[in-house]
């Protein structure tokens, strides 16, 4: 049986000190409230609660 799925490296979740969560590798991001379902190569997610563009980081944690 042929399998054409793209082989991506294993997902790495990197929690930045006083900063966002960076995710790379093989993952599927979903957010039912924002109607998001995507598999980007890299994503930065807010973990300070202040972003104006949740779930993504918008650098509000620096303010």
């Amino acid at each position, binding site marked *: 049986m042929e399998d054409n799925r793209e082989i991506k490296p*294993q997902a790495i*979740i990197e929690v930045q*000190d006083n900063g966002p969560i960076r995710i790379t590798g*093989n993952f599927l*991001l979903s957010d039912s*409230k924002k109607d998001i379902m995507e*598999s980007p190569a890299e994503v930065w*997610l807010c*973990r300070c609660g202040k972003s104006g563009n949740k*779930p993504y980081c918008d650098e509000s944690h620096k303010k």
Partner: protein
Amino acid sequence: MENERTFKRGRKYTNGEITVFWKPDTCIHASHCYRELIDVFDPGKRPWVDMYGAGTDEIIETVNMCPTDALTWKWNDEEKNADIDPAQTNHVNFRRPELLSSTTEVYEEPVSVKVMPDGPLVLNGTFTVLYGTNKKEVRESIISLCRCGASNHMPFCDGMHRKVGFIDN
């Protein structure tokens, strides 16, 4: 009190027909339970589980949504437990495949990164987490990470989003 007796570090609750088991140590605050069925699972009340808040079918359906074995259930009539449908994954006798140690997999499924509405980030799959000043590295299968900024157990969720009233904008 018959309805709420301590078992190990958990509790159990019954409506006479089924028993729901609660293991706080394995809860990752994914919040499916109270989002689906606040009349039964209300973290703001003590006891937080009211087995008479909804019908048995609804309670089973909601317990089955729990991504860990923090909430499990069984029929009080032991005979009914014998022919349980394996799809009812949070039955107390059933071990969820993703909670067993992973064996050989040719292709790894993408890690599920789920943004819980007004709650944490719930990650499920095989992945590596790096955190802390010395970049502590752990291989995990299911965790929830704080998104509200108020956790006392950073970077993990400890349920504080409810107390601070965190709302996704």
